């Protein structure tokens, strides 16, 4: 009896000791990678596929003391986790990807990130699209992130549906059909009449955003004052006109209903940043060859794209920066484009044959390697205010009420304005 007990005690003690050793390991793991020869482990958080899997071994081969831990998570979760790590002051990865739509939120907390200018990132400023560089610069002049890809903006349209409705199908002619947003509305009406009342576009929400982004001033001027009667008003008129004229299927993007309509021809045209190509191919593989891509009305545009940031709480910010710096070099950027199609944020690369001559067979061999860079180049640099996200949510919610038929006309605009004012308070 006694021996049994002492044996179990010994086992328990061994277990406790092992647990302690493990915790000790975990403790050092955080610090220097857990390896005695001073190797450094860099944790990199992002979502989806950034095309890094094949690049990492090349970097670690050249830098034997660096280990890279890739953590591809869910888009929303990664941003939310990053926010919580920043508040907690610990747990953040050494390198975190930030999406364009969350840029303002994290830029507002610039002091929690390494100022990349301190590490020498200023040397790359001229390589970047100016608006893209500005997006992650805080008002105090701290550079929070370096762009790794942009979305550009175009219109994807269904050639078969256009043809059936008596519209041109050739992408040059379609682009010429809608140089302005008024012309786009007119084309929509032609489609509606020619197709017997079918819906022209998927919904009004992304169009609202797209038009506002094309204006010189968005929701906020550089003085941080809400400017609803400028750019937002222009976008609102177009978006609500789409609804009022019955041209919009009034679907919310990225919902199951939207996906279904994409598959079965529930709409003929949608706003289409570069990354939307992959989305359409994934959701509606049955529509291969029935799409094409045209230039958007009103000039250029961008939606989406991402940045690399380095949270200040990391212990290896120098090593992290060197890896990020390596990732944004032309060679790696082109490799990523070839692998997953992410369009680089540096316009000089657009002349690389790998990008310039790229065509997408799913979209009728559209020269996407030219269309998206062209639109990304033409983006109007626009100041994004501290509360832009909140105002955007408020206004797009009122637009949803318009799409649901709950409100319309001048009353809708008044409500959009008052909700925006409340969100900006």
């Amino acid at each position: 009896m006694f021996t049994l007990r002492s044996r179990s005690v010994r086992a328990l003690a061994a277990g406790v000791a092992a647990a302690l050793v493990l915790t000790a390991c975990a403790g050092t793991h955080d610090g220097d990678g857990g390896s005695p020869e001073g190797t450094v482990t860099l944790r990199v958080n992002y979502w989806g596929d950034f095309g890094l899997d094949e690049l990492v071994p090349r970097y670690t081969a050249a830098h034997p003391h660096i280990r890279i831990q890739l953590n591809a998570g869910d888009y929303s979760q990664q941003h939310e986790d990053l926010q919580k790590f920043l508040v907690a002051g610990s747990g953040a990865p050494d390198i975190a990807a930030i999406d364009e739509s969350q840029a303002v939120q994290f830029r507002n907390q610039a002091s929690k990130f390494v100022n990349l200018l301190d590490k020498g990132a200023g040397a790359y400023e001229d390589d970047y699209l100016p608006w893209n560089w500005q997006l992650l610069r805080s008002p105090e002049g701290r550079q929070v992130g370096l762009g790794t890809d942009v979305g550009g903006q175009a219109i994807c349209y269904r050639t078969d549906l256009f043809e059936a409705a008596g519209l041109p199908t050739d992408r040059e002619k379609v682009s010429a059909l809608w140089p302005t947003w008024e012309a786009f509305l007119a084309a929509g009406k032609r489609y509606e009449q020619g197709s017997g009342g079918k819906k022209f576009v998927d919904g009004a929400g992304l169009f609202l955003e797209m038009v506002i982004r094309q204006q010189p001033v968005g929701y906020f001027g550089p003085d941080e004052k809400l400017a609803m009667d400028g750019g937002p008003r222009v976008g609102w008129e177009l978006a609500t006109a789409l609804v009022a004229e019955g041209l919009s299927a009034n679907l919310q993007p990225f919902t199951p209903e939207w996906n279904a309509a994409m598959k079965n021809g529930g709409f003929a045209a949608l706003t289409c940043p570069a990354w939307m190509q992959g989305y359409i191919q994934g959701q509606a593989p049955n529509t291969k060859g029935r799409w094409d891509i045209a230039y958007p009305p009103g000039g250029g545009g961008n939606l989406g794209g991402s940045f690399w940031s380095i949270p200040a709480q990391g212990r290896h910010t120098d090593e992290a920066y060197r890896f990020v710096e390596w990732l944004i070099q032309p060679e790696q950027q082109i490799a990523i484009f070839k692998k997953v199609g992410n369009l680089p944020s540096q316009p000089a690369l657009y002349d690389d044959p790998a990008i310039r001559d790229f065509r997408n067979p799913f979209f009728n061999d559209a020269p996407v390697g030219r269309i998206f860079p062209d639109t990304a180049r033409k983006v109007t640099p626009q100041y994004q205010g501290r509360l832009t996200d909140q105002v955007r949510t408020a206004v797009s919610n009122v637009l949803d009420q318009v799409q649901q038929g709950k409100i319309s006309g001048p009353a809708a605009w008044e409500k959009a304005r008052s909700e925006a004012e409340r969100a900006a308070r």
Partner: protein
Amino acid sequence: MPATPMTAVRRSASHRAPPPASPGRPGWRIRLSRWDINYTPYLLIAPFFVLFGVFGLFPLLYNAVVSLRTWRLDDPTRDGWTGLDNYRAVLADDRLWNAMGNTIGIFVLSSGPQLVLALLLAALLNRRLRMRTGLRMGVLLPYVTPITASTVVFGALFAQQFGLVNNGLASVGLAQVDFRAEKWSSWLAVATMVNWRYIGYNALIYLAAMQAVPKSLYEAAALDGASQWQQLWRITVPMIRPAVLFTIILSTIGGMQLFTEPLLFDTKPREATGGSDGQFQTIAMLIYRTGWKELDLGRAAAMSWVLFLVIVGLAVVNTVLTNRLSGGGRR
């Protein structure tokens, strides 16, 4: 419950006659065993209280401190004490009252039918049925289904254009409903999800309580000519009153904290606005939005405290009402 046995143990320990200790030896063995008897129970229940303190009490108090401060993640320069300003702002914000109305509305639409149906289901399962164990386990299936998965399925059922519910309405000649657009329809949809999930869970709790009701009561009632229905309401329900109270309190807490179902029911879940006009934004969603989307942690903390007080108030009301209704004011 725990008080009685423990004091009994302690009393017996202190009443034990002191052993005839040999002079010069302090009798550490005895002191140890006395220490053992006196303090071991506390040691054994300590893990709960330690965990509760770390993950329950501390956040609660920390939250109270935060609610008295300005803590804006997007504007660190404004950090500092503000007294009750957050509470004033929160109570004056009509979004809070809208969210409160939504939460209570969905709670009424879900908890009432849910508990009544659970009771009837439990009464059914309590009878002699074929495959009784299988059925009893089966009602728990919705509860073990991941909440995200079931919400996505319900989202598709209630979809406006290709949804099964709307197809059904159309096939009997009724108008299509955009379930997310109006308050009543979105509440109904969310309450349906909640009901589907928790009816079986509550039924099992009732069933367990029903097993303890003496069979002789039913036999006597049956001899006196009481119908099944009368037996259920006159015997079963009063006899399982503690279980009923338990489920009512649990569903009140759950209902007040409702979050995942309405969040994922939205077409733009990331913003947690609960529909285009806050039709189904619950308090928990508003707290989440205020804290993590509008980055105002002080105000979110104040809202959490308001919610906490509301839940405490409702729990008290529940207890009083339930005692009155089913217990005739005994106790």
